[in-house]
């Protein structure tokens, strides 16, 4: 079920009313209801894959309980490996089997050996990368004794399949979300209104910004050989805002809906396009995934504690794996490697934690230096996004070459409505004003009611008038 669909607009109020008025007799009943609602939400897409979620839930719940009483390190390690094997096994099969099979065949044919590889017609279960990482965080934390395993199966099942963030995150840590299923949820007016406000902003990002940018980004990327330098830059620019509006919009909706049900999820995006260097960008973009890789991969590998070679190795591993997490295509690996290349100079010169404060804090505008840094960082991410969006690595390179070969200036340009640029300007302005908050319009509460309501209606009107062609959320495929 898509958040921006008619079905969901019917589903949400029904679930809300039952949750607060019927299932409010106790936490257990509410948790059972969350599991049921989440399974309906997910099963609406394809009920067959519910079995995968259910199986992962049972496996990780059972391993958690066994780990609780197990003292022997060897057995504990074995149990952890079992959980990794099951969860990553599913992920590997559904997401990466064809990639490895095809790459294997291509590698052999490159060296002159022809072998027969067999690609399978596999459907990628929506959100598998997200819920797999979420359940893994539980087992790893229990293994490391950072978290007490739960014996409450329903609470654990609800944690794994909680519908607002089941298919596209934020990837919640068991340490943050699981305890919330043990506590009585209290409805507060302020929290619910704040949640709805965040949902509205998320919908605006998705419906108006992302879907409208998608129209032009798709047009330009699909016929990139035909377009001139300026148009190719515009294509990358539109895609940068498409993916940001799409994914951060989804996160806002997920966090907002969770607040309606009395849950607090972690912030997933913190205005990444206002970053002054790549290190800051990665502290602000898809925070739940970056911190997941930091805590469960980068730090166990030694982090930045060792020598230069180790730092370089670990940085490359974390970025390449992060790229690979997004999809079974070399384009994502190049995207990850490119970000590692951007990041390394900062790490090696110990400048990766220079910009940890808010940009232009307490000021209306950034300084000249900050403006230059923001633009440079944005341009670097723009180049990386080209590979993320490209269908193949060679297409990515051709696109970049197309931008820098000014011979193509005679080539075609596209007709686009100027309104999209005004909308983007409005969007960037609101994001800039609200950059100190968890989401752009969080602090609108300090303004009088008539202004707030006019602003909300304005958003709704913009959603109606500038509604783009409905697109599925990009991150569903990951």
């Amino acid at each position: 079920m898509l958040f921006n669909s008619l079905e969901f607009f019917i589903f949400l109020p029904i679930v809300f009313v039952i949750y607060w008025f019927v299932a409010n007799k106790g936490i257990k009943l509410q948790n059972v209801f969350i599991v049921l609602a989440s399974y309906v939400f997910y099963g609406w897409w394809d009920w067959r894959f519910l079995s995968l979620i259910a199986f992962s839930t049972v496996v990780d719940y059972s391993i958690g309980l066994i780990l609780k009483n197990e003292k022997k390190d060897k057995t504990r390690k074995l149990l952890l490996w079992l959980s990794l094997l099951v969860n990553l096994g599913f992920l590997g099969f559904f997401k990466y089997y064809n990639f490895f099979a095809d790459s294997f065949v291509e590698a052999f044919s490159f060296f002159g050996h022809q072998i027969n590889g067999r690609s399978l017609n596999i459907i990628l279960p929506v959100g598998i990368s997200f819920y797999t990482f979420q359940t893994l965080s539980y087992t790893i934390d229990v293994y490391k004794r950072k978290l007490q395993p739960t014996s409450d199966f329903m609470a654990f099942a609800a944690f794994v399949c909680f519908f607002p963030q089941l298919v596209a995150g934020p990837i919640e840590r068991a340490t943050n979300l699981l305890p919330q299923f043990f506590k009585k949820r209290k409805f507060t007016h302020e929290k619910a209104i704040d949640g709805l406000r965040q949902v509205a902003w998320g919908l605006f990002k998705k419906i108006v910004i992302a879907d409208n940018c998608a129209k032009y980004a798709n047009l330009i990327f699909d016929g990139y050989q035909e377009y001139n330098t300026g148009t190719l830059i515009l294509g990358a620019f539109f895609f940068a805002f498409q993916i940001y509006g799409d994914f951060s919009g989804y996160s806002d909706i997920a966090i907002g809906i969770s607040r309606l049900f009395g849950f607090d999820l972690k912030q997933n995006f913190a205005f990444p396009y206002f970053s002054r260097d790549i290190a800051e960008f990665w502290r602000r973009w898809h925070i739940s995934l970056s911190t997941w890789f930091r805590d469960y991969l980068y730090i166990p590998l030694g982090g930045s504690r060792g020598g230069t070679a180790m730092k370089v190795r670990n940085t490359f591993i974390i970025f390449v794996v992060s790229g690979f997490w997004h999809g079974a295509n070399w384009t994502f690996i190049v995207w990850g490697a490119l970000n590692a290349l951007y990041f390394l100079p900062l790490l090696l010169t110990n400048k990766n934690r220079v910009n940890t404060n808010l940009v232009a804090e307490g000021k209306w505008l950034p300084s000249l230096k900050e403006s230059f840094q923001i633009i440079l960082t944005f341009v670097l991410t723009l180049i990386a996004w080209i590979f993320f969006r490209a269908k193949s690595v060679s297409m990515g390179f051709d696109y970049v070459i197309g931008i820098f070969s000014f011979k193509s200036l005679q080539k075609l340009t596209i007709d686009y409505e100027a309104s999209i640029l005004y909308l983007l300007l409005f969007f960037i302005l609101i994001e800039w004003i609200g950059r100190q908050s968890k989401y752009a319009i969080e602090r609108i509460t300090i303004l009088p009611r008539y202004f707030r309501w006019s602003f909300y209606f304005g958003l709704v009107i913009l959603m109606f008038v500038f509604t783009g062609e409905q697109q599925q959320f990009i991150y569903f495929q990951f």
Partner: protein
Amino acid sequence: MKKFIKEIVFFLIIGLVIGEIIARFFFLTPTIPESQIDRFGIQKYIPNQAGYWKGGLHKWQINEKGWPGKLPESFDNLVTIIGDSFIENFENPEECHQMDYLKKALAKYNYTEASRSGVSFIEALEISKQLDSLNPKVQLIYINETDFSESVLQIKRLPNITQMDLDNNLITYGKMKAPGLKKVLYSWKLAFYLYRRFQPSLAQIKPAKSNVKPNQSISDNFNHFEKLIGYARKNYNLEKIVIVLRPDTNKEFREFLKLHVLNVIQLDNSEDDNWSFEHDYHWTCYGHERASLQVVEYLKKL
């Protein structure tokens, strides 16, 4: 919770009012004409209605006979144009109707249109029977092969479409589908807009069921079509009827019609396939003009 619900309801009421104003002001949805079923069982529009197409770019009108478009100045030397949504042509301004292009290209005839979206072949024949009273020289029926399949009850029962029950040699007239609900939806512009905007998401997730079963070819239905044509020969004036097939019509089907000695014009856009809108398969003004020029070539030979 009470305060929350109160605020939400209040917000929604204001939102609905503002939304309705916006939807009407910006013409976010086209005006849909009200329809009725006449005493012969034919579904047509209530006469003398007018409305705007999406965006308010142009106006449409229903004439006093209950069909979209205007009536000719005279019914002498008449050519009738019968069809579905392509002829209904709400997407284009009034001057882009087939009758206007045909009149421009071949002025010796007068033209009148009788169309409604979803018309089946058998319903088009029923309409032609009604129009026979005007003593037309030619009756042009613009259809394609699905309008034939939809005409046969034995292929698939479609209660809202006029069909032929071949086993009993009986016409079952189409019934209006949820007319009350449609009336509310079409009058409540915001609701109609939301329905149109979000309804396709259902289709995105679950592909629409096709009438044609897997591995089923159009020729599988030819025995039904033969019976249908046999019935048509006995009950309608096929001498005057010319079937105008759209460019995308199945070749096998076209040959089948010719084999059964029906008058057929096969429209051809192979050299210039720019006939339709970008996001809508209906013809643009240009498409209508191109189609009319090919029909004129046929009419000139009469």
